[in-house]
């Protein structure tokens, strides 16, 4: 029987219990996509991409390490340059060159120079002290001067600036010769002392040879592997996305180093002395990866130089004296033939003994160099043409330069190195970042960053909480 029916009702009644089982392939597709998603979105972004970041950083680090290792040679040149006597400078420079070229004449030294250029640091510093002995105006090393007087009697030494073949003779040999001639001198250096020193020194040299050669080979291998990794990674990355996720930044900054507390890095006995931080330079390169629009993870390599002055100290040399009880337990004067003692001028003035020693105006300058590897997160608060970020993170600091100098009325000499510095330390970083987009891929950055050092000094260093502040500026390239 035909009946009138509203079209809506016809459909509603028909579709009331309408259910159709979909084809099995639908679930197979869903399942495949879910699994692909799990792999793509979870494994690749966190593990794989971060591994890419880490690989790039390691590459930068190893390149930086090689670069900065070479750089220390020039630093040691600086040390010799600080000597005020122009004759000495000339002498030193020629000596340094001669050591390299005439090594064949010196069997005792040849292995050192051939093996690694770096060892010239050793010879340079040795020669610095040789040069120093001719400086009779030196108010501090009075005892040492007498040695140099006697050494002037030695024809071998006298001819040193003139005779090119002899110039390269290692310091230790001269010293032995000196001692032989010095028998009549009132301040006799005991022969055992000198030979003992020689042994020790050559041992140190041999050690540095080993240390410098082995890691370098490793680095080059590592670098090769890493370059391959990074190339592979970047290829994948460029295929996957066209966003400016990566960026490479160069930066340079004036850095101010100081302590939050009153203590001294030299030792607790210097806590009362007046101290001042130096403004030095830091420079480096970093790479960052954008996790999203707001958050970037970055790391890199920076060379940081830090300087810190402890004023009003007294420094004197104690050759042949047992100074183990002296106050300078944190200083290793290993580049000097004798021992150096440093005491706070405060101590003496307290004892009303000031008249004893005339050199109260001396400042100890502690010069530190680090290779800094930061790992920081940038959070963008304003993400416009002129952007504003907050930056937080930490750095690993690898000690690359550790020197103590004394400054006295413009005179500057290296007296040794601090023994209470840790080779690896850390810093907690906090900063603000301003960046200005010069173009689509170029950024100008200005970042004042505060870095609080952790574990920089041994725990027994008297209450010294170092920090440094840098105003980092640089150009970033996004790709």
């Amino acid at each position, binding site marked *: *029987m*035909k*009946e*009138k*029916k*509203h*079209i*809506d009702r*016809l*459909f*509603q009644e*028909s*579709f009331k219990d*309408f*259910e*159709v*089982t*979909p*084809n099995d*392939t*639908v*679930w197979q*597709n*869903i*399942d495949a*996509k*879910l*699994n692909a*998603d*799990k792999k793509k979105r979870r494994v690749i972004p966190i593990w794989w991409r971060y591994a890419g970041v880490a690989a790039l950083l390691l590459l930068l680090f190893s390149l930086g390490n090689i670069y900065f290792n070479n750089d220390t040679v020039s630093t040691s040149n600086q040390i010799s340059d600080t000597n005020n006597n122009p004759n000495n400078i000339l002498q030193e420079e020629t000596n340094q060159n001669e050591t390299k070229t005439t090594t064949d004449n010196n069997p005792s030294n040849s292995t050192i120079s051939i093996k690694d250029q770096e060892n010239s640091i050793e010879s340079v510093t040795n020669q610095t002290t040789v040069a120093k002995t001719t400086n009779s105006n030196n108010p501090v090393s009075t005892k040492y001067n007498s040695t140099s007087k006697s050494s002037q009697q030695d024809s071998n030494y006298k001819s040193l600036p003139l005779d090119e073949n002899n110039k390269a003779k290692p310091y230790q040999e001269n010293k032995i010769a000196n001692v032989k001639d010095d028998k009549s001198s009132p301040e006799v250096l005991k022969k055992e002392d000198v030979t003992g020193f020689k042994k020790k020194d050559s041992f140190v040299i041999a050690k540095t040879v080993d240390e410098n050669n082995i890691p370098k080979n490793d680095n080059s291998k590592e670098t090769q592997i890493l370059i391959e990794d990074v190339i592979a990674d970047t290829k994948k990355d460029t295929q996957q996305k066209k966003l400016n996720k990566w960026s490479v930044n160069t930066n340079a900054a004036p850095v101010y180093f100081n302590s939050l507390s009153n203590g001294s890095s030299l030792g607790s006995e210097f806590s009362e002395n007046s101290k001042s931080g130096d403004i030095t330079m830091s420079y480096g390169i970093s790479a960052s990866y954008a996790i999203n629009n707001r958050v970037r993870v970055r790391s890199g390599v920076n060379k940081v130089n830090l300087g810190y002055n402890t004023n009003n100290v007294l420094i004197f040399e104690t050759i042949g004296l047992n100074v183990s009880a002296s106050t300078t337990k944190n200083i290793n004067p290993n580049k000097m033939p004798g021992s150096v003692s440093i005491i706070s001028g405060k101590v003496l003035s307290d004892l009303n003994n000031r008249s004893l020693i005339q050199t109260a105006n001396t400042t100890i300058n502690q010069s530190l160099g680090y290779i800094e590897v930061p790992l920081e997160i940038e959070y963008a608060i304003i993400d416009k043409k002129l952007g504003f970020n907050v930056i937080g993170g930490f750095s690993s600091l690898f000690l690359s330069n550790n020197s103590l100098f004394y400054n006295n009325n413009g005179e500057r000499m290296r007296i040794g190195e601090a023994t209470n510095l840790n080779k690896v330390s850390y810093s907690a970083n906090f900063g603000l970042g301003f960046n200005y987009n010069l173009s689509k891929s170029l950024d100008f950055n200005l970042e004042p960053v505060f870095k609080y050092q952790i574990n920089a000094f041994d725990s027994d260093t008297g209450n010294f909480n170092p920090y440094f502040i840098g105003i980092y500026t640089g150009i970033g390239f996004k790709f």
Partner: protein
Amino acid sequence: MGLKQLIENCKNNDTQAQSELYKLFSSKLFSVCLKYSRNTAEAEDNLQDAFLTIFEKIKQFKHKGSFEGWLKRITVNTVLQRYRKEKVFDIITDEIAEDNDIDIEDNDVSIDYLLKIIQELPDRYRLVFSLYVLDGYSHKDIAHMLEINIGTSKSNLARARQILKKTIENYLTSQSLQSLQ
């Protein structure tokens, strides 16, 4: 395992639970897709997209209201997203007859046939008709969901009814002619 536990396991991306959930709801949701899609192949595509969205967004489900209703909403939205951009040039708006009754006998038309003629409607007409007639949405809701105004929704529905009525009538006539021969 209760539905609630199943949902929780799906939130943790448990593959077994996802498969279980699919088995429970795929038929219901596929019927939704069929009513809103142009053909079975596109309906399958839409079902797939809908489930991917469901598994992605299931973490947001807070056990308030019916889970099945939530699933249906996601499915409908997925399909709408695909078709609502299609423009319908609605030229004939004033010639619509108000007679929506049809002379028909029970079992005259199969559900497969009805589904087929719904799917053959222009996209917008199909969406409005299915939303209003089969799933009970108001013109106000439809206007909101399809980003059109209420008047357009009403006229689209009227056009859809007209097309469907005419199609069924033609079909019935041809059927009876065939039976006479």
